[in-house]
C-alpha cells in the first residue's frame, strides 16, 4: 500500500499548554484509520496539523506528491445572513473532478440541492459536507467527527457509506469518532490518542489494550478483554503524561 501522509514526532503547543506530543501516524491508500480519545485529547488538532492548518507544529509531516485532500470539517461556521443553497455551496469547491449532482447522489442528499444551507439538520449537513469533500475525488479523505448530529441508525449508514467511498476511490480515510462500537466494526486501524499515541493497531488489538481500557473506563471492560498488564505511565487531571516511578 502506498503511503499518503505520514507524521513523525509531531508536537504542538498553544498558549504554553501541550496539546500533541511526539505523535507518529501513517495513513496509506485504501485504509480507514480512526482517531479515538477523550475530549481534549488533541484529535482535531492532529487533523489540523496534518492538513497544514497549524503553522507552528513541530516534527515532520510528509505528504505524497500531488496529494488531493478532501476535508469534511466538524461544523459550518457560516453566518446565517449569507443566503447560500446547498448547490451553490458545492460549486464553491476548488478544482472539482466530479459534479455536485453526482456527489450529492452518492451521499444520499440529492433532495437537499436547493435547500438553504442554514436550514439543514445536523445529519443533512454532514451529508452535504461529505459531498463537498468527494467533489475533489480525493486521495485522502479527512473527516472530523462525521457522525456528529446523526442518529444511531444513520451512523451505521454513514460508516457503510464511508466504506463504499473508500472502495470506489481507493482513497485513504482518516476520521475522528466518539462511537467506539462503530469504529471497532468499520475501521482497519485505530489510533487511541491522548496528547500522545496511547496505543494503536487493529481494532481488536486496541480494544484489549490496557491504555485503551484506562482511557475509556470500566464500563468498556466487561465487554472486552480483562486488564492484562500495567502500562508505563499515567495521566494527570489535565491528561498530561506522568511517568510511573518504580518502587
Amino acid at each position, binding site marked *: 500500500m502506498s503511503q499518503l501522509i505520514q507524521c513523525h514526532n509531531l508536537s504542538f503547543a*498553544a*498558549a504554553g499548554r501541550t496539546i500533541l506530543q511526539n505523535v507518529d501516524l501513517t495513513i496509506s491508500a485504501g485504509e480507514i484509520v480512526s482517531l479515538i480519545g477523550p475530549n481534549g485529547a488533541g484529535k482535531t488538532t492532529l487533523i*489540523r496539523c496534518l*492538513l*497544514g*492548518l497549524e503553522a507552528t507544529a513541530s516534527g515532520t509531516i510528509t505528504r505524497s506528491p500531488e496529494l488531493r*485532500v478532501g*476535508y469534511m*470539517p466538524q461544523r*459550518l*461556521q*457560516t*453566518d*446565517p*445572513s*449569507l*443566503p*447560500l*443553497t446547498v448547490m*451553490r*455551496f458545492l460549486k*464553491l*469547491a*476548488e*478544482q472539482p473532478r466530479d459534479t455536485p449532482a453526482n456527489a450529492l447522489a452518492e451521499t444520499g442528499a440529492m433532495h437537499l440541492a436547493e435547500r*438553504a444551507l*442554514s*436550514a439543514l439538520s445536523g445529519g443533512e449537513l454532514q451529508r452535504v459536507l461529505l459531498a*463537498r469533500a468527494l467533489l*475533489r475525488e480525493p486521495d485522502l479523505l*479527512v473527516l472530523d467527527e462525521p457522525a456528529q448530529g446523526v442518529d444511531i441508525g444513520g451512523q451505521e449508514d454513514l460508516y457503510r457509506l464511508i466504506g463504499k467511498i473508500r472502495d470506489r476511490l481507493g482513497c485513504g480515510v482518516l476520521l475522528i469518532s466518539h462511537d467506539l462500537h462503530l469504529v471497532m466494526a468499520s475501521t482497519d486501524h485505530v489510533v487511541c490518542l491522548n496528547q500522545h499515541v496511547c496505543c494503536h493497531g487493529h481494532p481488536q488489538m486496541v480494544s484489549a489494550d490496557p491504555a485503551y481500557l484506562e482511557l475509556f473506563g470500566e464500563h468498556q471492560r466487561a465487554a472486552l478483554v480483562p486488564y492484562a498488564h500495567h502500562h508505563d505511565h499515567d495521566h494527570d487531571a489535565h491528561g498530561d503524561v506522568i511517568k510511573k516511578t518504580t518502587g
Partner: protein
Amino acid sequence: MPEFLWHAVIAGSMVGMIAGPLGSYIVWQRMSFFGDTLAHSALLGIALGLLSGVASGLAVLICCALVAVALVYLRGQSRLNQDSLLAIIAHSSLALGLVVVSFSAKNSVDLSAFLFGDILAVTRADLITIATSVVICGVILWRYWNKLLAVTVHPELAEVEGLPVHSLRLTLALMVALLVAAAMKIVGVLLITALLIIPASSAGNLARSPEHMAIIASVVATLSVLVGLGFSWSADTPAGPSIVVAATLIFVATLFAGPAKNRAG
C-alpha cells in the same frame, strides 16, 4: 442643481454601488467592528496628513491600509482578545487624530465635515480618486468573487482546497480601506460602517443568493445616499447622518417585506 451637489451625487452613487458587495462581505464575516476600526483610523490619517503636508486623501488611504494589514495579521494571533484590540485601535486612533487636528487649528479645519460628511466637500479631483477606487474594488470583486466567497463560507475548507486564504483576507481588508478613504468626505468617518452594514442587512432580508444580496445592497446603499444627500441639501442637515437615517428607514421596511426564510429556518 449647483455643481458641488452633482459632485456629491456622482461620488455618493459610486460609493453606494461598491458599498453593497463589500458591506455584504463585512456582514457575512461579522467584521463590522473591523470596519469601524478602519474608519476611525481614517481621522488619524487626516491628522498625520495635516502634520506632514501630505494630501489628506492619500494620508487617509495610507493610514487605513496600514491598519488593515496590521488587523489581518493580528487576527491570527489567538493570544490577543480581538474585541478589545479592535476597540483600543479604533478609539485611540480617533482620539489621537482629534488631538492632533485641534493643534493645527490655524489651518481652519472643519472637524464636523470629517466626522459627519459634507456635501460641499467633494471636488472634481475627489471624483477622479473615488472613481479610481471604485473601479479597482469592482474589478477585484468581479475577478475573485467565488474565491472570496469560498473563504467567507469556510476559511479552513478553502485553505485545504488550496486557496491563498491569507492573501484573500488581506485583499478584502484593503478594499474596505480603499472604500473608507473614498467615502469619508461624503459620509464622515463616524458613519461609514453604517453605509456598509445597513444596506447589506436590508438586502439580507430579501436575497436568495450571495450575488442577489450584493446587488440589492448596492441599490439600497445608492438610494440611501441619494435620498440622504437630497435631504441634507434641502433641510441643511449633515450629509452622513441623513444618509444613514435613509438607509435605516429602508432597513425597517425590508423587515416587513422580506421572505420568511430566516425566521422559518
